[in-house]
């Protein structure tokens, strides 16, 4: 069974997913960071595949992408690093990346590698749903990869239902009209949107991401969903860290406790 399904079968509340960019802050940090995330007590690991033009991302993740590329990160390099990681890391792992680098690697070769190394799911923000259904769904399914879609406050109820019908992992709720980047607090308007989606009784679990940064925002988001995703705030922790292992663990502890 796919580790994402196993997770949500047993844990329905306060699921914490942590995003980081592969190759940041240093090229060889990928697997050590994953181990630290697991040791810290998070539930899902999202590995960002760096890209030169990440249009859905704010300055913090843009910078981490650029530094990772300068460090020499590439799709080949990432898969090399991931060989054998399953001996050390047991959490569900999702790759998040823009379509172009994956297309150049070859969609099928990419899926095959994901399966070989032990990746469970994908988040491809610029892959539209229809394109996925027409071109890629059968392929992802055949390699046991769960595809995750984003929704935002602007997404219509009809489209949310379509998205819910076309995935069986989780739904990534973008918390506001925005690109990634930690902001302070969660507004009344955002709460209304969280409630509206909660009332829809979707079949998939929902994780709220963008702007989640600490224990308070994690708890608020979790009150209206199955949990949350932290990206930019975690990247900042990595950026300022002297001791990755310790800092990652204590940050995650501070969020979940």
């Amino acid at each position, binding site marked *: 069974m796919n580790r994402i399904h196993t997770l949500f079968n047993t844990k329905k509340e306060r699921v914490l997913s942590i995003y980081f960019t592969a190759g940041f802050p240093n090229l060889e940090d990928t697997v050590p960071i994953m181990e630290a995330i697991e040791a810290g007590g998070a539930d899902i690991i999202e590995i960002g595949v760096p890209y*030169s*033009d990440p*249009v859905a991302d704010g300055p913090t993740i843009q910078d981490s992408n650029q530094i990772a590329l300068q460090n020499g990160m590439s799709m080949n390099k990432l898969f090399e690093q991931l060989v054998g990681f399953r001996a050390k890391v047991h959490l569900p792992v999702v790759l998040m990346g823009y379509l*172009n680098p994956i297309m*150049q690697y070859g969609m099928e070769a990419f899926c095959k590698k994901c399966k070989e190394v032990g990746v469970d799911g994908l988040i491809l923000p610029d892959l539209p749903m229809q394109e996925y259904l027409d071109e890629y769904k059968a392929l992802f399914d055949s390699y046991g990869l769960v595809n995750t879609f984003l929704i935002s406050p602007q997404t219509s109820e009809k489209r949310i239902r379509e998205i819910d019908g076309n995935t069986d992992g989780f739904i990534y709720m973008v918390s506001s009209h925005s*690109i990634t980047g930690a902001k302070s607090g969660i507004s009344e308007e955002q709460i209304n949107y969280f409630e509206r989606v909660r009332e829809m009784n979707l079949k998939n679990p929902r994780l709220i991401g963008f702007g989640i940064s600490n224990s308070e925002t994690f708890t608020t988001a979790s009150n209206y969903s199955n949990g949350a995703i932290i990206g930019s705030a975690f990247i900042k922790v990595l950026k300022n860290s002297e001791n990755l292992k310790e800092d990652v663990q204590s940050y995650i502890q501070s969020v979940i406790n």
Partner: protein
Amino acid sequence: MIGVDERGYYGSFGGAFIPEMLHPNVEELKENYEAIMASPEFQAEFRGLLKDYVGRPTPLYFASRLSEKYGAKVYLKREDLCHTGAHKVNNTIGQIILAKKLGKKRIIAETGAGQHGVATATVCALMGMECTVYMGELDIQRQRPNVERMRILGAQVIPATSGSKTLKDATNEAMRAWINNPVDTHYIIGSVVGPHPYPEMVARFQSVISEEIKWQLKEKEGRENPDLVIACVGGGSNAAGAFFHYYNTPEVRLIAAEAGGLGVESGKTAATTAKGTPGILHGSKTILMQTEDGQVVEPHSISAGLDYPGIGPVHAHLFEVGRAEFVAVEDEDAMKSGIELSRLEGIIPAIESAHALYALNMIEYKKDDVIVINLSGRGDKDLETYIKWGGY
């Protein structure tokens, strides 16, 4: 047949590869643009402004001394005489009327050389709409006069500081700004790039160029179809406009002049079809310059307006099926053609347009062929570059 299909593709290029956060905006445009553009009120306002404000029709000028030199009948389509100095305004007039009809209150745009930014700031002033233009930090330094023009017109110019700090990054920033302001804001893209329906919409606004060429040439030559149409391609909007009504007339040769930069093999080029491969850039599947690993490569051209790592999907399709001939014109040659036109015809062209002019030296044609060159803009904005280059 060359044209867009209902999925937003030209052959295998096009589509709308956008984050879900932009889906409602792009869908709203897709659902409405054709009906709005076809409505009599829209047409009346659009045509009225093109005539009285932009100064259309622009002349189709028989360049006799240039013709003599090249041994063909060379006509220049004088888009350089448009208000604001380039063809860009044809599109911004169309899009701002569309934005008003969609009830939008704010406009955002990206710009490279600043021509599209100026054309956007201009129509925003005309319509009393708030205008924010994203421009690469490097381009802001390179194109100071256009930055100040935008500011005089009341626009806010925001530097794009990410990546290479040029047009591609300004486009990323504009897309991010649109994600952050999805409800009241319209994004006026400046070329035939971006997610469907932008490439088609922009091409239709620019298609007034070939619409005019047809009747103007009929008056002058007794026929609507030239033997060749030549245009420069950055993103490809002036070329799309000049080619539009000839796409499906195979006897008219279409010549697209890309920026060769310091040479196609120099690593400092913007010759997308020569050095590019299929991929996704700014929301559409097209041909772009990228590494083997799918990272977008920074282009180089002496002309900021051609300094873009991709081309519009329609041009990728024209290239793929061989409907258009692509040439790569190097910096040095474009500059020489700019001076040549200045001396032969008393017209200082934009350096972008000078690339189209130089193509006359790179292609074969018959004596007395009728050739229309789209003179997309005037050289005022490029004075600094001409002076620095100095070869005159």
